[in-house]
Each structure stands twice: as structure tokens, then as C-alpha cells.
């Protein structure tokens, strides 16, 4: 047996093993990749194509108009829609995370009834958005609603939540935060519980107060969680639909990019091409945000 023969044997075995692993990899990945390609990327690509058509939903015919839908959006609707989207996203993300963090800090302490309180805080997150929207619509109803009844006890009248665009947006934001802060609270709670006790005890021995301990030890250690929550809640907020649809079907003051896309296609206008253009803009914004967060914000994150 030659020297080359003794080397070739293990190499062949190595190649066969690599081939087997590759085939196994393909066998596992291919079904999922095919599903994703058919049900996610195909609609995505088709959507970009539709966005360049003057196409009435349901019609078999359409006219190619190039960037006409984009031109119309940026010259007509962009200011109001992007402004509403920005306000809704910033306030709901900021509100959910700040209140969620505050709740997590409280729930991390040894309090009586802590476990029921944790469940209560998280419960709205798992409820149906439609159900939540209907219940809160009744609460905010300025004539027969619960809030109006409470205000009447104090001699005040209820604001016109459903008629004033600014108030409608405020109302939906309040409900969105209420529904979603449990998610942030639970994730933050898990992060807080992972902070090493010895570090906190060392800080206490060194005379650091609660505020200083939080700023210098806890906050940096939970920054990966903050980064994760920031990304997921921004993406979720930008795609919010159910509460807006149920509470403000006309979209008065609450027409975010997502809802504008729905209204244009299904809200009576039937402009599938224009709706697709808005959807495409939403995707581009989501991609830009994701890349920006990964490139720049993640540098500020401290991974222990």
C-alpha cells in the first residue's frame, strides 16, 4: 500500500461524510425553503410588480404605469401617512418598552401576589386584537362607554375619541401599549433575573444606590434584551392592523402605512396597484430599519 493510498482512504470517507451531511442539510432545508419561496418571496416579488400597475382589485386587466403609484404617494399621501406611522411607532415602541421595563423592575421584587401580577400583566398580549379592540371601543364610547360614565361622575364630558383624528390616534396608541407592554415586561423580567446577584451585592457593598446600580450594572447587562425588544416591537408596531381596523375603520388619524395599504386595496378604493406600492414602501422601510439597527445600534450593545 502506497503512502498516497493510506491518505486517500480517510479523505474519501471524509468526502462521503461531507456529502451525506450536505444531503441531510438539503433534505431538512429544502421543504422549508420551498415553502418560504412560494408563500413569502413570490408574493413579495409579485407585489413589487403589482406596484407598477394601475390595477383595480378583482379586475383581470391592468395598465403598466411604471413608478406612477410611487409618484402619487410621495406627492399626495406621504406626509400624512408617514407622519402617522412615525408617531404611532415611536410612541407605541417607546411606551411599551419603558412601561414594560418599569413593570419588570417592580415584578422582579419580592412582593405579595407577584406571580398573579405577572400573569395579569402578560395576559393582554395573548388576547385577540379584535376582541381587545371591541372591548376598548365600548370603554371609549363617548356616549355609553365606561370611561364616559366615570368622567360624568366627576362632572366632565368624554372627549370625542372616534371623531377627532388626534384623539383617535391617542386612543389606539393607548390600547396598543396596554396590549403589548406585557410582552416587553416578561422579556425584561427574564433579563433582570439573569443579572448576576454577586455584581449587585458588590455594588451595594461599594455603596452604590439603586439608581447608580441600575445605570452602571443592570442597564448595560440587559442591553441585548433592549436591542432585541427594540427590533421586534418596531417591526410589530409598523405592521399593526387589528386594533386600528376595529377601533377606527375609516382610519381617521390612524392611517399608518400598513392601514393605508389595506384601505386602498380593500377599504372601498380597490386600488390594488397603489396599495402594493405602499406595501413595498413599508418593506423597504422595514429593511432599512433592520440594517440600520444591526449596523449602528448593535455596537452600543454589551454582550456579557
Amino acid at each position, binding site marked *: 500500500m502506497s503512502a498516497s493510498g493510506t491518505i486517500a482512504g480517510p479523505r474519501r470517507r*471524509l468526502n462521503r461524510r461531507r456529502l451525506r451531511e450536505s444531503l441531510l442539510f438539503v433534505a431538512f432545508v429544502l421543504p422549508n425553503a420551498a415553502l418560504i419561496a412560494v408563500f*413569502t*418571496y413570490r*408574493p*413579495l416579488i*409579485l*407585489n413589487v*410588480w*403589482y406596484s407598477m*400597475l*394601475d*390595477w*383595480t*382589485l*378583482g*379586475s*383581470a*386587466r*391592468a*395598465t*403598466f404605469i411604471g413608478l406612477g403609484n410611487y409618484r402619487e404617494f410621495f406627492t399626495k399621501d406621504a406626509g400624512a401617512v408617514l407622519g402617522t406611522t412615525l408617531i404611532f411607532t415611536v410612541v407605541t415602541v417607546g411606551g411599551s418598552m419603558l412601561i414594560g421595563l418599569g413593570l419588570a423592575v417592580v415584578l422582579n421584587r419580592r412582593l405579595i401576589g407577584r406571580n398573579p401580577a405577572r400573569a395579569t400583566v402578560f395576559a393582554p398580549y395573548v388576547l385577540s386584537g379584535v376582541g381587545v379592540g371591541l372591548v376598548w371601543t365600548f370603554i*371609549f*364610547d*363617548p*356616549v*355609553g362607554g365606561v370611561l364616559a360614565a366615570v368622567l360624568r361622575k366627576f362632572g366632565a364630558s368624554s372627549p*370625542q*375619541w*372616534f*371623531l*377627532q*383624528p388626534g384623539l383617535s390616534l391617542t386612543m389606539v396608541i393607548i390600547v396598543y401599549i396596554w396590549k403589548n407592554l406585557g410582552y416587553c415586561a416578561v422579556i425584561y423580567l427574564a433579563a433582570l433575573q439573569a443579572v448576576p446577584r454577586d455584581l449587585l451585592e458588590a455594588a451595594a457593598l461599594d455603596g452604590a444606590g439603586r439608581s447608580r446600580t441600575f445605570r452602571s450594572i443592570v442597564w448595560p447587562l440587559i442591553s*441585548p434584551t433592549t436591542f*432585541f425588544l427594540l*427590533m421586534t416591537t418596531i*417591526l*410589530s408596531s409598523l*405592521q399593526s392592523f387589528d386594533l386600528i381596523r376595529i377601533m377606527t375603520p*375609516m382610519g*381617521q388619524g390612524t392611517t399608518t402605512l400598513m392601514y393605508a*395599504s389595506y384601505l386602498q*386595496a*380593500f*377599504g*372601498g*378604493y*380597490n*386600488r*390594488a396597484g397603489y*396599495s402594493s406600492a*405602499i*406595501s413595498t414602501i*413599508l*418593506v423597504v422601510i*422595514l*429593511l432599512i*430599519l*433592520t440594517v440600520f*439597527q*444591526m449596523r449602528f445600534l448593535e455596537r452600543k450593545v454589551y454582550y456579557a
Partner: protein
Amino acid sequence: MLHDASRAAISRRSLLGLIGLGAGAAALSACSGPSTSASGAGAGSASADAVGGPSFDGVTPAKTISFWSNHPGSSQAITQSIIDKFKAESGITVNLVTAGSTYEDVAQKFQSAQAGGQLPDLVVLSDVWWFRYFMQDSIIPLGNVLKAAKVDLSDYRQGLVADYQYKDSQWAVPWARSTPLFYYNKSHFKAAGLPDRAPATWGEFATWAPKLMAARSTTKAKYAYEHPALAGYAGWTLQNILWGYGGGWSKKDSFDITCDSDPSVKALSYVADSVNKEKWAGVASTSSTDDLAAGACSATIESTGSLVGVQKAVGSRFDVGVGFLPGGPVSTKPVCPTGGCGVGIPKGVDKANQLAAAKFIGFLTNPENTVSFSAATGYLPVRTSADTSSLLAKNPLIGTAIKQLDVTRTQDWARVFLPGADQEMAKSVAAILTQGAGVDATMKTLRTTLEGIYTSQVKPHLS
């Protein structure tokens, strides 16, 4: 050799990237419309040349069909009982499918199905949707199929039949038809010293409203009158006041927009003043009839389809009164628009199914069943030969709604034929009523918008 798990494992960065990409893609796939072979061939026009539609000579009706409905007026039970009777009589099974809770829900599903989904054999067509289906070539003209199914439209109320006619073709048959109706709380009217009837004109009601407001210590109502929720069908009910003042969203049977004409501006100024200046009227957030039933307002106008629901909600707490819609300074009749829905047959299904659907239309709307349907919902009997005596004996208020059919007017084309017009009208009225926008300027803007919709989305289909 150990497998290098750290290299193969997905990194946090990759995971987050994938989440972002997946979320974006999900947003798109959720919003994108059905696939179509868009080819830049132009908007095209609807099947305007087909007066009677396809021939049904030699076609045998199918044994099973599907019927998409939103069950207007909580009509699922009564519709199912009619379907059961139809099955016993004809042997044809009709699968009643809940396609949403509103006409818009049904439209959304139906239009999505055009792109390759499972089409129904019969579908609910509201007053604002059938024309779009006509323009999109999604429904068939019913002349020949109704003839083949031996359904004669001469016994139907001709005003309701005419609502679905265009280019000499019949595109739907009236089914759950309604008009707005003036609802009032008899106890509140009595407490205010008012006669037990609806006002003859809006001017008369303006003199009644302060009395109703003065009686609030007794009635506990918040408003003398409540305008229906704008998110519903503001464009529909406001036609009453617009017509009373001699205005309208558009000229009669024309696409000539008149929402900014002097009479229209005067009419909408009356509405704005009732809320902002006189403050005797409010605007419902969700349902004005719910507020009426709760005693929060003394009067409102809403669909006759809400009648039975209102009576059930009120129970024995107070007597509900109904009356014709008030007139205006220029016209007192006809100032009542028709509304509700009919049923139509999609184009892309087998002729056998279309014929079976036409047979079911005839049964669904026969004199006996239209009365049963009316009794259960408050919608109006659509047949002139229908014996309504039992209906009136059971619920006399429906008689007022039926009588009002004689003084109805076909709706303004700007509202029913322009896609998105209802939404634009509601937004404009909301701006006037709740944001202090000027009536004149707002209506001028609305006119520009409506004309733009006509030019870009309707005119090309009518050529």
C-alpha cells in the same frame, strides 16, 4: 473531527436579520392582491355589450351551489330556513357561507376570489358594490338566466329593480332592501311636549330640538338628535338632507358632481350647525341606534334593517316611533334613498351553477319568503304581490317603512358608482363636523377628489 457548532449556528445578527426580512415579507404577502396576468393591455371595459347575458339553452341546474352573504340584519337563521325549504322543493342544496359581517367584507372576499380563489355561485351585492363588479366584468347580466329559471321581475318593486340596471342589463335582483328611517323615542318626545310623529321637515325638527334639549333633566338624553356613525354610511343617509335642500352629491342619474353647489353647501351647513353651533346634535361613534336604544339620544335616522334589532334592544323600556325621513326647504319628497343589497351571479362559475343560483334567487325573493325575511329583519318586501298583512299585524312599524318605498329616490351616482366615494364623503363630513373645517372649501376639495376618481377609475371602463 468535531463539528464546529459555533460556525454553523445561526448568529444573533443573522437571526434578527431574518426576523426583519420575514416580517417585511409577511407584511407584503398579507397585503398583496391576488396574482393576475397584468399585461399592460389597458383598463378595458366591462361587458356592456351583453344585454341579456349568456344563453342557458339546454343547461341543467346544478345540485349544489354556494351563497356568500354577510347576513344583513342578522338574517342567517331566516335565510337558512328559506334554503331548507328550497332544498325540499327543488332538491338543490345551497351552502350558506358567512363571507364577513359587512358588505365590504363580502366585497373584499369576492374580489380576492376573482384572482383564482373559489368563487361563490351567488353573492350579496350592496348598492355601492354591484357597479364595480359590473365594471370589472365579474358578474353576469341576469336577463337570460332569469328567463331560463322562470323568474319574472315584473312583480318586483320596479324602483328597487331599476337600482341594478345599467346599459339595458339587469345585474342583480333586490333582496335585503332598505331605506333610512326616522327613529325616535316616544317618551322623550312626550316629555318635551312634542307631537307623536316624525318631523315633516328638518326645519321643523330644528324648532323641536331645543325643547328636547330642555327636557334632558327628565329624559337624561345627551342629544336631541344623533347623526349616524360616519364610519358607516354617512354618504347614504346625508343624501336625505342634501336632496331636501335641492342639492346632492351629484346630479340625478349623472356623474356631474354637485357636492359644492349652493344647495349642497346649505344642507351640510345645517348639519354642521346642528353639531357645532346649536349643539343639539351629536355624531354616533359606533351605532346611533344603539345610542337611541340606550336613551342617549332622542332621535336618529338609520336603516330599516335596524328596526327589529332596535325593538329588541329597547324591549319594554320605551316605545320606539318611526316615520318618513324629513324633507327640506326645497323638496319634501322624494327625499329618501334606497339602500341595502341584492344578489347577483358571478361570471366565472359553471352555467349549471348559475342556473341553479337563478332558481334560488326566485325562491329566496318569492312573495312568501320576502315577507318572512322582512318580518325577521326589518328589510322591506321586494315583491308587489307580497301579502304584508301578517307582517303589519305583527309589527306595525314596518308598515311605515314599506309605505316610504313609494317616495324613494335612486341614489346619487357619485356615491354608489365611484370607488371609495363613500369613504371620501365620510372623511369630508367628519372634517366639517368634528374638526371645524369650512363646508364650502371642504366640498370643493371633495368635488376635485370625486372627479379624479371618476376620470381615473370609472370613465375608462364605460367607454
